[in-house]
């Protein structure tokens, strides 16, 4: 009886909601905003994946550290939020270079499994260190963008924050694309990921190239965190949840595609918000991310935009 009643209840609510255009539009905007934040963290994952060929699980932790630095610079030191974000991006990039030099470089770059284990270890260490330094109490972090909404339809608001999040992500992906395709550093990056031995043989210094990749990814991750966290509350496990959505976004986009990461992020953000509204099950939000990963791996392991490696023998 109870089960039937609750099932009916869900159905009822859904039917009711289906006809509520404003609610859907509101969730659509929220989905875009969330999606942009997942996309920005996914871009960090993709950058590392492109250069090293593995998923860096410590990426979320470096972003977590970066976001706490944003908190320190903005709330504690009183800097404007945008300036605080820039400072934190630089600081987390420096930390990432240090981490790469000390913990990653001793391992051969083509032995992926030990490296993945090391990044898992780093995830635990950095998350705990953040907990020790800043404690586990939740804090609120201001957004870089003004509050308010320039466009409104009833409860559906296109806020400055949504616009800002989307704009930031498109700017980042544009800059990364230019960096990778038009600069010598970008060429070195792609050469290292394509053929490590030949990269050495043309004189590319592999270690510093990967170190630069870590620094860049950490800075992007920090920026992504600074977009996400103002919607939530800052606490030491916050980026772990974001990381799962971003992993889903990166997997959907194809792991090595920048554009794929952005589209994957937006799709995951929209899917999460719209499905949650339709099913009225906010507890299952995280499960939608895992479901996306599962379906992608089963149906199309290279993702939507991932490159299938062409190699004639």
């Amino acid at each position, binding site marked *: 009886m109870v089960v039937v009643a609750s099932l009916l209840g869900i159905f009822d609510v859904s039917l009711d909601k289906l006809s509520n255009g404003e609610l859907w539009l509101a969730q659509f905007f929220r989905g875009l905003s969330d999606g942009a934040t997942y996309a920005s963290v996914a871009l960090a994952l993709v950058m590392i994946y492109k250069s090293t060929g593995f998923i860096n699980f410590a990426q979320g932790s470096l972003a977590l550290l970066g976001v706490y630095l944003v908190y320190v610079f903005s709330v504690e030191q009183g800097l404007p939020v945008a300036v605080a974000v820039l400072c934190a991006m630089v600081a987390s990039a420096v930390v990432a270079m240090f981490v790469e030099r000390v913990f990653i470089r001793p391992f051969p770059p083509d032995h992926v499994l030990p490296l993945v284990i090391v990044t898992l270890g780093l995830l635990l260490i950095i998350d705990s260190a953040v907990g020790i330094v800043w404690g586990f109490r939740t804090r609120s972090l201001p957004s870089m963008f003004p509050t308010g909404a320039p466009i409104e339809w009833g409860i559906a608001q296109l806020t400055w924050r949504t616009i800002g999040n989307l704009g930031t992500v498109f700017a980042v992906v544009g800059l990364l694309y230019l960096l990778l395709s038009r600069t010598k550093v970008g060429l*070195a990056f792609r050469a290292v990921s394509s053929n490590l*031995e030949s990269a*050495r043989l043309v004189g590319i210094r592999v270690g510093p190239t990967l170190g630069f990749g870590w620094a860049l990814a950490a800075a992007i991750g920090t920026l992504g965190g600074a977009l996400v966290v103002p919607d939530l509350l800052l606490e030491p496990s916050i980026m772990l949840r974001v990381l799962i959505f971003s992993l889903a976004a990166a997997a959907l986009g194809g792991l090595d595609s920048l554009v794929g990461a952005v589209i994957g992020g937006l799709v995951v953000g929209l899917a999460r918000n719209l499905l949650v509204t339709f099913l009225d099950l906010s507890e299952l939000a995280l499960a939608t991310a895992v479901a996306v990963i599962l379906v992608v791996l089963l149906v199309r392991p290279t993702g939507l935009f991932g490159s299938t490696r*062409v190699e004639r023998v």
Partner: protein
Amino acid sequence: MSGPYLEVQGLKAAYGNIQVLHGVDFSVAEGQIAVILGANGAGKTTTLRALCAMVSTEGSIKLAGEELAGHRTADIVRRGVAHVPQGRGTFPDLSVEENLLAGAFVRTDAEVQGDVQQWFETFPVLGERRNQSAGSLSGGEQQMLAIARALMLRPSLLLLDEPSLGLAPMITRSLFEQLTAINADAGTTMLVVEQNASLALGVADVAYVLEAGEVALSGPADELAADDNVRRAYLGY
């Protein structure tokens, strides 16, 4: 300059506990083509890898009188040593043109683009496919690309590991003609490891025969080609 351009003395190399080279001595004069012959496992590839610090080594490697041993691969490349490794010397995910640009990675002069165009003229098939990913080229085209990629460095010493591997005999012959032409035009010193001994001895000035990680025979290429032991072991007649 007095003395040989490349002088290797007492070169030892090992993969983990397995000693592959047991003290190899050889030298190549500037502008010469030298060939290293030997059976499988004799240490030919390891010798080339040792010159580029891609395997742990002991001994002395002097290039134009300067010691290379102890330097990293990236620094040795900056001294003008280009290496075409066995098999795949290209970047399969990069376009043909980007492969050539990567080959000139350490160059800072303004003539890089001109050199790219020049290689597209030398190997027209590469020019036609400049925007295609290198991985989609055929084996022969990839070998051409790998060699052009190495020459984009404008090296003073070119190391070639089995350039004929997997190539049709016709293509191999034209490849060796290209190499001798480059050697004559640019004066690039070359050290070639090659299974096709008769072809290699035909273009080389000096030859070394490696056996079990040591130099067993050495001398001018034409003398070795006439040597009964070399003929029986490597030329097969």
